[in-house]
C-alpha cells in the first residue's frame, strides 16, 4: 500500500503520455507539429546527455531558484505585514492586482532599461512576478487567519510584532505554501519567456525559441517537457517541505 502510494505521481505522467500517444496515433494533429512521445524523449535523451539541453536546463534551474528565493525573502515578510492590517492591504491592493495582471513580457522593456540584458533582468522580472503572487497569497492567508489565536497571543502580552511572527506567520503557512508553489511556477514561466524574448544564449526558453524557429518539434517539445518536469520538481520540493512543517492544517 505504502509502496503503491509512491507510484501515485506517475499516474499523471502515464495519463499525459497516453493522451499524447493517442493524439499522435489518431493523427488529430499533423505529426510534424506534434511529434510522438518517443521522438520527443529521444530528443530529450540526446539533448540531456550529449547536447546543450542539459546545460540549458541547469541555467534555467539556477535563474528560477534565484528569482524564487528573492521573491520569497521579500514577499513573505511584506505579505504578513500588509495582511495584518486589512486597511493597509486595501490601500496597496491596486498595485498588487495591477502588476499581477500585467504580462511580464510587457514589463521587459522597463526592466531591460533598469537592469541591462544580462541575467539580472531575467531574474528580476521573474522575482517581481513571483513576489506579487506570493505576497498576495500570504496576505490573504494572514487576513483569513483564525481570530481566536491572534486574540490569545495578544492577551498573553505578545507585541504586534510577536503576533505577526508567532501567530500570523504560522497561521498563514498553508496559504503561504500555496503562494510559494504558485510563485515558483510563475518564476519558471517568466524565466523561460524571458529567455525566449530577451537576448539569451542559454536556458530552456532559448532552446524552445530556437527549436521553434527551426521547426524542430521534437527538440521544442523536449525543452518544454523539461521545463514542465522542472516545474513539477520544484513544486514537489515545496510540497515535501510543507508536509514536514504544516502538520496541523484542517485541525
Amino acid at each position, binding site marked *: 500500500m505504502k509502496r503503491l502510494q509512491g507510484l501515485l505521481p506517475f499516474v499523471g505522467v502515464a495519463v499525459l503520455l497516453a493522451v499524447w500517444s493517442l493524439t499522435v496515433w489518431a493523427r488529430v494533429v499533423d505529426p510534424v507539429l506534434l511529434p510522438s512521445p518517443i521522438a520527443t524523449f529521444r530528443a530529450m535523451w540526446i539533448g540531456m546527455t550529449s547536447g546543450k539541453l542539459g546545460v540549458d536546463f541547469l541555467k534555467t534551474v539556477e535563474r528560477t531558484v534565484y528569482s524564487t528565493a528573492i521573491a520569497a525573502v521579500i514577499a513573505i515578510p511584506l505579505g504578513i505585514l500588509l495582511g495584518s492590517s486589512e486597511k493597509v492591504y486595501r490601500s496597496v491592493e491596486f498595485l498588487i492586482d495591477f502588476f499581477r495582471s500585467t504580462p511580464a513580457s510587457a514589463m521587459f522593456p522597463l526592466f531591460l532599461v533598469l537592469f541591462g540584458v544580462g541575467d539580472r533582468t531575467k531574474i528580476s522580472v521573474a522575482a517581481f512576478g513571483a513576489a506579487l503572487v506570493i505576497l498576495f497569497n500570504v496576505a490573504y492567508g494572514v487576513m483569513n487567519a483564525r481570530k481566536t*489565536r491572534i486574540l*490569545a*497571543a*495578544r492577551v*498573553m*502580552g505578545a507585541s504586534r510584532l510577536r503576533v505577526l511572527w508567532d501567530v500570523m506567520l504560522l497561521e498563514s503557512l498553508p496559504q503561504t505554501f500555496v503562494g510559494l508553489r504558485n510563485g515558483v511556477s510563475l518564476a519558471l514561466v517568466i524565466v523561460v519567456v524571458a529567455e525566449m524574448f530577451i537576448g539569451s544564449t542559454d536556458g530552456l526558453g532559448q532552446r524552445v525559441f530556437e527549436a521553434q524557429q527551426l521547426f524542430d518539434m521534437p527538440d521544442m517539445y523536449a525543452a518544454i517537457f523539461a521545463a514542465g518536469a522542472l516545474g513539477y520538481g520544484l513544486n514537489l520540493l515545496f510540497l515535501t517541505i510543507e508536509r514536514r512543517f504544516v502538520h*496541523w492544517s484542517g*485541525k
Partner: protein
Amino acid sequence: MAGAQPAASIELTDNAREAARRTAPHVTIRGLTKRFSDATIYDNFDFDIPRGKLMSVFGPNGCGKSTLINMIAGLFPVDAGEILFDGQPLSQIKFGYVFQNYREAMFPWLRAFDNIAYPLRVMGVPKAERITRVEKIVAGLNVKIDLNLYPYQMSGGQQQLVSIMRALIVEPEILFLDEPFSALDYEMTLFMREQLQRIFVETSTTTVLVSHDLEEAVYLSDRILLLSRHPARAVEFVHYDAPRPRTPGTMSEADFISTKAHCLEIFQREVRKG
C-alpha cells in the same frame, strides 16, 4: 525645614496612595456600551472589579459574560464608555486568560509543552527557566498528560487543562477564567478548584471566573456578580466572605447554603423574566 516638608508630604502621599490603591477597584467600568448588529449587550454599564478578590460572574447563556471579559482584556472594542485599570485608561497588563473556546485558542503548531511555555517566551524568559517553570506547574497540578502531543491530538479535557496551565504560568495581574472547568472530569474539576483556591490564597491575584456551576462559583468566590439577560445589568453583587481555605465541608455550612440559595433565587427570577 522648608525642604523637608514636601518630602514628608510626598512620603505620606505615597503611603496614602498605596493604601488607596489596595482598596480601590482594580478595574473600573464606566458607561460601557456594546452592540452587535441589532442586539444591545451592554447599555451604559457601570461596574468595579475589586482588587485582589476572586469574583464570579453568573448569568444566563448569551447575556454577555464572555463579551465583558473580552472587552476588559482589550480583545473586543467597546462602542462607548471606558475601562480603567487603577484609574489608567490602558496599560501593559499581564493577563491570564482561559478562553471559553480553549480549543481554538491553542496554537496547533506547538506541542502542549510549548503552548504552556508560550507566555513565558513572550516575556523573554530564557529557555532553561521556561522548562523548569513548566515542569513545576505540571508537577504542582499533578497532571498526567503527554506534553509532547499537539493540541489536536489531545482530548477536550486535556486541551482545557493545558489552557489553564498556560494561563497560570505567568503569575498574571488579572486572571480571567471563562468556564475553565467545563470539559474536565469529575475528579479533575474538584482538584482544579482546590488548585485555583490555593493559588488565589497564595497570590491574591484579582480573578474573574465565569461559571455555570453555582456551587463552584459560590465555593470559590468572594463576590458573585449576577447578570441579567442582555442588555446586561448587574442584578446583584453578592458577597460571600467565608474564610479561606475553604474545604468541601464549607459547602454544608449554613452561610454557603443560604448564599447559594439566594443567588439561585435571583438568577431564576431574572431568567424567567425575559
